C-alpha cells in the first residue's frame, strides 16, 4: 500500500481544480468539519499540510534573503542616510561656498524608470571584471554668487550583489537567465569582484546599545556594560562594583568615577531622587546602594556644576581647542558617556535615567547573582550582514572622498587671483576612483579597515565555494563569530537552547572553529533597521507615560518600556500594552519584524526595532486553536494566497529570540491547549539547508549529522545549470549525478534534487575480501564501468598578454615543426594560433599556450632596437594527461589580452578515492572487484558497494539503515520516499512494501557468492543507499620522490607535493628509530639523505675554515674534514654572526 500522504496530494490537486470552479456552498462543505473539530478531510489536514507554508516562505524569502534584504536596505535606504549625514562640503577659505548632496542612486539616473544596462554577471566572471553599477549623486553648489545644481554625477561604482534589486537578474525569468548564461537555481547573495565570486559572511556580534550585566563571583565584581555604536564612534561604558561601591568606567575618562557623582553631573542632584531612580522603594537595594552617597559626600560634591567640573578634570581627550573643565564635563556627559544617546539640549534626564538603570541592574545582580545576562544567549546577539558592512565601508570612503574634495577646492580657492570663476565640479571628478577601488579592494581582500572606528578586520569576505551546489548554499547561510578560535572557553561554542529554530543544531565544523561557526536554520529571517521615532510616538499613543514627565518616586512601581534598550516610559498595564502592540503588528500596522516582550524579572517591556536580530515565522494560536485553517491552506495551494497574506491577516507572525521566550510554542497541533500562543510551522526547520539533506537524521547519533554537514560540502556533483559555461580555477563535476531515492522536504525546497551530488548505490552490508577494514569500501568494477562515481575535474589557467611602456607586448607564437613537418612533441596540442586546440590531449611537458615576451621590454621607446621575443610557454605538468575543454580570449579592464584555458580530466574511481553516505560514514575505496566475483541476490542484482558491517555498532547511524529500507521499498514501489527529519516515510509502511513485494521486512536478502555460487551463510542487509563521492582523490594526492629539489637556505629537501617535496621523517618517527637503537639509519635519514655537507674544521680553534685552511689560525695544520648537516653549519655561522662562537672539539670515534 502506498503511503497515504502521497496519495492525498495527488487526489487533492486534481480535486482542487474542480473545486475552484464550484460554487461557495461546496466550498463551505469542505470547511465544515474543521470548525466542528471533527475528523479532517482527506484533502486538507492542517496538522500535516501546514508545512506548505514553508515553500511559500522560501518562495518569498529564498535561502539567502538575509543577504539580499540587507544589501537592498543598504543601497535604497542606508546610502541616503549616509548622504544626509554628510550632506554639505564647506570650504575653509570661502565661507560662501558650499556643495550639498541632494540624492544618491545606484544604477539608475535621475528620473529614469529603468536601470542603466550593466555588464551581465557571467561576463564579469569570465573577463575578470567587477559586477558593479555606477553611483549617481545629485548635487547643488555655489559658483560665484549663483547656485547651480547638477544631477547624475557619477562618484564611483558600487559592486552589486547578485539577485539584489539592483542586479540584472532581479525578477528575471528562467529563459532570460538562460540567455545570460546564468543558473536559475543559483541563490545569489554574493559579489563578483575581479572575476571571483566573493561572499561577505554573516558576522555574529554582541548586541550594541544594550546593557549586559555580568558577574565575576570569584573576584566579587558585578559590571553592567553597554557598547554604544553610532555612525561616528564606538565606545563602551561600564558601571562596575569595586569594594561594593559602584563606579562608572569609560575609556576616555582617566579613572573610575563614583556613580553618584556621575548622576549628579547628569542633573540628578538630590540624593533622595538618586535613591528613587536607582532603588525605588526596595529596602535591600537601598541598603546596598547607600554606601555610594558617602563616596560622593567625601569628595564634597553637592551640585551639578561641581560634579561636572570633577568629571571634566578626569576626562582625557584630544582636542584642538581647549575647553574649560566645566565644558569638558558637559561634553563628557552629553556625548562621551553612553554615546548612542546624544543630548542636544540641557536636559540630561534621559542619560541620567540610563545610567541609573545600569546601576539598578548592577544592584540587582549584587543582591541576586542570578540576575546577570548570558552573553551566549542568541537574543543578546546581532548578526552583521553584507549591507551593514558595506555601509560602514562606504561611509568611510565617502568621508574620505569629501575631505579630499574639500582639500582640493581649498587649494584652488586659496589662489588669490583666479582667472575664471571657480567651478567645483571640475575638481570633484578628479579622485572619483577612490570609492570604486576602495570598495573593490575591501571585498576582494576581505580587509575591512575603517578609519573612524580604528577598526581593522581581516577575513570578512571569502571566495564562494563552488565545489557543489550545497557547498555554495552552505556558505551563504554561514555565520562566523568574532570570538578568537584559540580561546579555551566552552560557553560560546556550546549549543544554546535559544538557538532552536534559528540556527542549525547540526551544522558546525569540527576542530578549532567548532561551535563558533554556525549556520542559519531553514526558516530564519534577519531583520534590517526600522525607524525608532514613529514607534516611540505610537507607544505614547497607546498609553505609555513619557519618561520626561514621570515622578522619580513612582518609576519602579510600574513596568518600564524600553525601546532598543533605552527607557522611554512606563506603563501600568504591561500585558495590556503588549497585547495591543502585538495586535497592531498582526494587523500589519507596524513592521512585522518589530518585537516586543515582557521581562518580569526586570519589570520591563522591551521593544526592539534594530537590525540583525534573528527571527522566524510561527503560526499564531488563539484560544487553543491554530489561526491557520484548512481554507487558508487550500488557498495557498491554489496560489490565491501568498506567505505575505498570512502575515497580513495575522495568521502567522515573526518572533525574534527574545519574544519567543515570552511565548508558549507548540511543536505539533496535538499539543495545542489554552496557554499555547504559537504553533511551529514544521519541526524539521530546526535544521539548516545542509543538515536538511540527511535522511532520517533524528535516528542518527548527533555527531554523525555534524560530520555529514562537513562532508556534504565536499561532495562532487552538479554545480549549477551553467556549469559547462564556467571557467573556474578548479571545478569538480559528477558525470552522472542522481537525485537521492530517499529525499527530504528540505532537498526539494533547496532544489538539491535538481542539482544533486551523489548516486544511489546498491549496498551490501557484509564483509568481503579483507580489503574493507577501517571503513574501506569494496567497489564493483562493472558499476564503475557503467559510470558510478565518475567525475570530471576542470582546471583553469590564466595568462595575460602584457603591454609594456615601450609599445612592445607579449605575443602568442605558432607551433614548431620537425623535419617531417609534424609538430614537435611539446607543441603537439597547439593550433596554428599558438593556443591549445579544444579537444586536444595535453600530456605532461606539452605546451598549451605558446607565449613569448619581448626581450627589450625594459628599454625606453627611444632606442629602436629590433624587438625580439623570448619564448615563455605555459607547460602542462601533471601525472595524468588532460584535455583542453575551453579556450577563451578576451580583454580585461586594463586593455590587456586575457587568455583562459580550461583543462579537463575525466576520472573514474580508483583505489583510495573517498566516498561517503549521507550519515557521516566516510570510507575509501579498498578494492575494486569484478562483478562476477561479487555476491548476487535472487534477482541477479550484485552490489555497487560492499560496506563492512563494523561501521554500524559504534557509529549508531540507524538513519542509514532506515534509508536503505526506504530506498529499497521505493525501488520496488516505483516511488521516491521521504526521510524528512521528525517525519518521513514510516519504517512500518516501508517494511510492508518490502513484504508485499516478496522481500524480507528488515531489508535482508539471501545472497549467493559470486566466486563459489554457494548461498551465503547469513542474510545480507542489501539495498540502495545514496553515496557521495568526495573531492579527496588519490590522483591529486599521490606523491613520491627519490631525488629532487632542495631549499636554497638549508639545502634540505623541499616540502610539499606541489614542490615535489621529500617525505619527512618526523619527530615521532625519529623517536621510534632512537628507541630501536638504529643509529646508522638515523644518521642516514636525518643527514645523508637530507643535507649532508662536508666542512673543514680546525681542530685547534674549533671553528670552521674552508679549502683546508683555517682563517682564524692562519694555518692548514689542524684542519680536518668532516660531514655535518648543512643546517648545523648554518646554525654555527648564524651564531658567529651574533657574536657567539661555537667551537667544535673533535675526538676520534674509533
Amino acid at each position: 500500500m502506498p503511503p497515504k500522504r502521497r496519495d492525498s496530494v495527488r487526489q487533492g490537486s486534481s480535486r482542487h481544480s474542480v473545486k475552484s470552479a464550484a460554487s461557495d456552498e461546496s466550498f463551505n462543505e469542505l470547511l465544515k468539519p474543521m470548525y466542528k473539530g471533527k475528523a479532517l478531510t482527506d484533502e486538507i489536514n492542517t496538522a500535516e499540510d501546514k508545512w506548505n507554508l514553508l515553500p511559500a516562505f522560501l518562495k518569498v524569502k529564498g535561502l539567502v534573503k538575509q543577504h539580499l534584504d540587507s544589501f537592498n536596505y543598504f543601497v535604497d535606504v542606508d546610502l541616503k542616510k549616509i548622504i544626509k549625514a554628510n550632506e554639505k562640503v564647506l570650504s575653509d577659505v570661502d565661507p560662501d561656498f558650499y556643495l550639498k548632496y541632494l540624492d544618491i542612486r545606484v544604477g539608475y539616473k535621475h528620473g529614469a524608470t529603468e536601470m542603466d544596462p550593466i555588464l551581465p554577471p557571467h561576463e564579469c566572471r569570465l573577463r575578470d571584471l567587477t559586477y558593479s553599477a555606477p553611483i549617481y549623486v545629485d548635487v547643488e553648489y555655489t559658483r560665484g554668487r549663483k547656485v547651480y545644481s547638477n544631477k547624475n554625477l557619477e562618484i564611483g561604482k558600487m559592486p552589486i550583489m547578485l539577485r539584489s534589486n539592483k542586479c540584472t537578474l532581479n525578477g528575471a525569468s528562467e529563459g532570460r537567465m538562460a540567455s545570460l548564461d546564468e543558473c536559475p537555481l543559483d541563490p545569489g547573495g554574493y559579489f563578483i569582484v575581479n572575476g571571483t565570486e566573493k561572499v561577505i559572511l554573516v558576522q555574529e556580534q554582541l548586541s550594541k546599545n544594550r546593557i549586559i550585566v555580568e558577574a565575576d563571583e570569584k573576584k566579587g565584581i558585578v559590571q553592567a556594560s553597554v557598547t554604544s555604536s553610532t555612525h561616528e564612534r564606538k565606545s563602551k561604558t561600564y558601571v562596575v562594583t569595586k569594594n561594593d561601591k559602584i563606579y562608572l568606567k569609560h575609556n576616555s575618562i582617566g579613572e573610575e568615577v563614583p556613580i553618584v557623582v556621575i548622576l549628579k553631573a547628569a542633573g540628578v542632584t538630590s540624593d533622595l531622587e538618586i535613591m528613587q531612580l536607582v532603588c525605588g522603594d526596595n529596602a535591600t537595594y537601598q541598603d546596598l546602594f547607600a554606601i555610594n552617597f558617602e563616596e560622593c559626600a567625601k569628595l564634597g560634591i553637592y551640585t551639578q556644576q561641581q560634579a561636572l567640573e570633577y568629571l571634566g578634570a578626569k576626562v582625557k581627550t584630544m582636542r584642538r581647542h581647549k575647553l574649560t573643565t566645566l565644558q569638558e564635563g558637559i561634553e563628557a556627559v552629553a556625548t562621551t558617556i553612553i554615546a548612542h544617546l546624544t543630548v542636544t539640549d540641557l536636559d540630561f534626564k534621559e542619560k541620567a535615567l540610563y545610567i541609573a538603570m545600569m546601576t539598578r541592574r548592577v544592584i540587582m545582580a549584587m543582591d541576586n547573582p542570578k540576575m546577570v545576562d548570558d552573553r551566549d544567549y542568541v537574543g543578546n546577539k546581532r548578526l552583521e550582514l553584507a549591507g551593514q558592512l558595506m555601509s560602514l565601508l562606504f561611509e568611510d570612503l565617502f568621508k574620505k572622498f569629501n575631505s579630499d574634495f574639500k582639500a582640493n577646492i581649498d587649494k584652488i580657492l586659496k589662489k588669490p587671483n583666479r582667472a575664471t570663476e571657480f567651478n567645483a565640479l571640475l575638481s570633484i571628478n578628479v579622485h572619483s576612483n577612490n570609492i570604486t577601488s576602495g570598495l573593490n579592494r575591501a571585498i576582494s581582500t576581505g580587509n575591512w579597515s575603517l578609519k573612524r572606528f580604528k577598526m581593522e578586520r581581516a577575513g570578512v569576505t571569502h571566495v564562494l565555494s563552488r565545489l557543489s551546489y550545497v557547498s555554495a548554499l552552505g556558505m551563504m547561510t554561514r555565520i562566523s563569530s568574532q570570538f578568537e578560535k584559540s580561546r579555551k572557553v566552552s560557553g560560546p561554542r556550546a549549543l544554546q537552547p535559544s538557538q532552536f529554530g534559528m540556527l542549525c543544531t547540526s551544522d558546525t565544523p569540527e576542530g578549532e572553529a567548532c561551535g563558533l561557526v554556525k549556520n542559519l536554520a531553514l526558516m530564519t529571517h534577519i531583520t534590517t533597521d526600522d525607524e525608532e521615532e514613529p514607534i516611540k510616538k505610537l507607544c505614547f499613543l497607546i498609553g505609555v507615560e513619557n519618561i520626561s514627565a514621570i515622578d522619580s518616586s513612582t518609576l519602579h512601581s510600574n513596568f518600564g518600556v524600553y525601546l532598543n534598550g533605552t527607557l522611554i516610559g512606563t506603563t501600568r498595564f504591561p500585558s495590556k500594552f503588549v497585547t495591543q502592540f502585538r495586535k497592531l503588528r498582526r494587523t500589519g500596522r507596524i513592521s512585522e519584524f518589530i518585537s516586543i516582550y515582557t521581562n518580569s524579572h526586570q519589570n520591563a517591556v522591551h521593544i526592539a526595532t534594530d537590525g540583525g536580530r534573528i527571527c522566524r515565522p510561527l503560526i499564531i494560536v488563539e484560544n487553543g486553536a491554530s489561526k491557520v485553517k484548512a481554507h487558508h491552506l487550500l488557498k495557498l495551494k491554489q496560489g490565491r494566497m501568498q506567505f505575505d497574506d498570512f502575515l497580513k491577516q495575522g495568521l502567522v507572525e515573526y518572533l525574534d529570540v527574545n519574544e519567543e521566550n515570552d511565548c508558549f510554542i507548540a511543536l505539533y497541533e496535538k499539543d495545542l491547549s489554552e496557554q499555547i500562543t504559537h504553533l511551529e510551522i514544521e519541526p524539521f526547520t530546526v535544521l539548516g539547508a545542509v543538515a536538511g539533506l540527511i535522511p532520517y537524521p533524528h535516528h542518527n547519533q548527533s555527531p554523525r549529522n555534524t560530520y555529514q554537514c562537513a562532508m556534504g560540502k565536499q561532495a562532487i556533483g552538479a554545480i549549477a545549470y551553467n556549469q559547462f559555461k564556467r571557467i573556474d580555477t578548479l571545478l569538480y563535476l559528477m558525470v552522472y549525478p542522481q537525485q537521492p531515492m530517499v529525499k527530504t522536504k528540505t532537498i526539494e525546497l533547496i532544489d538539491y534534487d535538481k542539482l544533486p551530488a551523489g548516486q544511489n548505490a546498491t549496498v551490501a552490508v557484509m564483509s568481503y575480501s579483507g580489503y574493507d577494514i577501517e571503513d574501506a569500501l569494496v567497489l564493483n568494477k562493472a558499476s564503475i564501468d557503467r559510470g558510478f562515481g565518475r567525475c570530471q575535474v576542470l582546471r583553469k589557467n590564466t595568462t595575460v598578454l602584457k603591454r609594456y611602456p615601450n609599445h612592445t607586448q607579449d605575443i602568442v607564437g605558432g607551433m614548431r615543426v620537425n623535419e617531417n613537418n609534424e609538430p614537435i612533441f611539446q607543441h603537439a596540442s597547439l593550433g596554428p594560433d599558438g593556443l591549445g586546440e579544444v579537444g586536444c590531449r595535453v600530456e605532461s611537458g606539452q605546451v598549451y599556450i605558446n607565449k613569448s615576451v619581448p626581450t627589450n621590454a625594459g628599454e625606453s621607446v627611444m632606442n629602436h632596437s629590433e624587438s625580439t621575443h623570448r619564448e615563455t610557454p605555459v607547460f602542462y605538468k601533471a601525472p595524468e594527461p588532460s584535455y583542453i575543454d575551453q579556450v577563451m580570449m578576451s580583454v580585461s579592464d586594463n586593455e590587456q589580452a586575457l587568455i583562459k584555458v580550461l583543462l579537463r580530466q575525466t576520472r573514474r574511481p580508483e583505489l583510495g578515492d573517498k566516498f561517503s553516505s549521507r550519515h557521516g560514514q566516510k570510507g575509501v575505496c579498498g578494492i575494486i572487484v569484478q562483478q562476477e566475483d561479487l555476491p548476487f541476490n535472487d534477482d541477479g542484482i550484485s552490489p555497487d558497494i560492499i560496506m563492512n558491517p563494523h561501521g554500524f555498532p559504534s557509529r549508531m547511524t540507524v538513519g542509514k539503515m532506515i534509508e536503505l529500507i526506504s530506498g529499497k521499498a521505493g525501488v520496488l514501489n516505483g516511488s521516491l520516499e521521504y526521510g524528512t527529519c521528525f517525519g518521513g516515510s514510516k519504517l512500518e509502511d516501508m517494511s510492508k512494501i518490502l513484504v508485499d513485494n516478496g522481500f524480507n521486512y528488515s531489508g535482508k536478502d539471501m545472497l549467493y557468492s559470486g566466486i563459489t555460487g554457494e548461498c551465503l551463510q547469513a542474510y545480507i542487509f542489501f539495498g540502495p543507499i545514496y553515496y557521495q563521492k568526495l573531492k579527496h582523490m588519490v590522483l591529486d594526492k599521490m606523491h613520491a620522490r627519490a631525488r629532487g629539489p632542495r631549499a636554497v637556505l638549508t639545502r634540505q629537501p623541499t616540502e610539499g607535493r606541489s614542490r615535489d617535496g621529500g617525505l619527512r621523517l618526523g619527530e615521532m618517527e625519529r623517536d621510534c628509530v632512537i628507541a630501536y637503537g638504529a643509529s646508522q639509519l638515523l644518521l642516514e635519514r636525518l643527514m645523508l639523505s637530507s643535507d649532508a655537507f662536508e666542512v673543514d674544521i680546525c681542530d685547534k680553534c674549533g671553528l670552521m675554515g674552508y679549502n683546508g685552511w683555517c682563517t682564524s689560525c692562519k694555518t692548514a695544520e689542524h684542519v680536518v674534514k668532516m660531514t655535518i648537516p648543512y643546517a648545523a653549519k648554518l646554525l654555527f655561522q648564524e651564531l658567529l654572526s651574533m657574536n657567539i662562537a661555537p667551537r667544535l672539539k673533535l675526538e676520534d670515534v674509533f
Partner: protein
Amino acid sequence: MSKLFVSDDEDEPMTNTGSESPTFIPQDHGEDEDPVVSEIPMIITSKPAQTQLCALQYPGRPSARHYENESHVLSTRLKPSTDLLEADVPIDTSKFFDVNKSDEWGGVNKQTLSGVLIGLEGYYAANVQNGEIVLCQLDKVAQLRPSLNYIDKEIATARDLHRLENNHSGRDTVQVVQMSVKSSNDNAPRLGEALMARKKVEDESFTQLPWVDSSSEASLALKKEIFQADNRNVLRSNTNEEDYIGLLVKDISAN
C-alpha cells in the same frame, strides 16, 4: 482595538473643540475581571487664548506638601527662548537648619528650584467636578529641582580670591604679550550641541514672572475659567476604528 484614547487625542479631527465628548469605556477583550464600575463624562475645554498652561513637578517633594500658603513661592524667573525656569521657595529655618552653614554660604534663606520646560503631547490638567472630568491640554511640563547654586557661587568666589592672591604674590616681571591677528572664522572652536545649548542659556537673561499663589483669588478665578465646562455637545467621531488606528500608525506604514 480599544476605543480608550479616542476622546483625548489630538490626531482626532475635532469638529468643535470645547464640546462634551461621549464617554468611552475600555472595551474588554472578554476579560471579565475588569468590569465597568461607573461611567464618567469627560469634557475637553480649551484654555483662554494667550494662556500657557504648564505643569510644574517637584521631584523629591512629597506630593502632600504643596508650595503654598506660608511656604509659597517667593519669585519665579524664566528665560523665554531656552525655557529655563527658576523658582525661589522659602526654607523652613526652624527645623533641621544649620545656621553656621548658612552663614558660610552667605546667608541662605531661600531655596532655588530650577528646571527646563519640555513640550509634551497628550498631557492634560484635569479636574473632577459635578461628577464630570474636565480636561485641559498642557503646553509644557517642567521638573524643578533644588539647584544649590550658592555652593557654586561660594566656590567661584573662593577661586577668584585665590587667583587674586596669587597675582599679588606673583612675580613682578613684565610680560610681553604678543598680538597676532587671526582670521575670525576658521579657528573658532566648534562647540558640541549640548555646549551650544548651555551657552545659549547663559547668554540669555532672566525675565521675572509674577507668582500667584494657588490659594489666591486670581488663581482660583483662572482655575475656574479653565475648567468651566459650558459646551456640553456630544462629540461625534467621524473616524471609524479602522481609520483611527491608521491615523495612529500613519507615519510607520509598514506595508
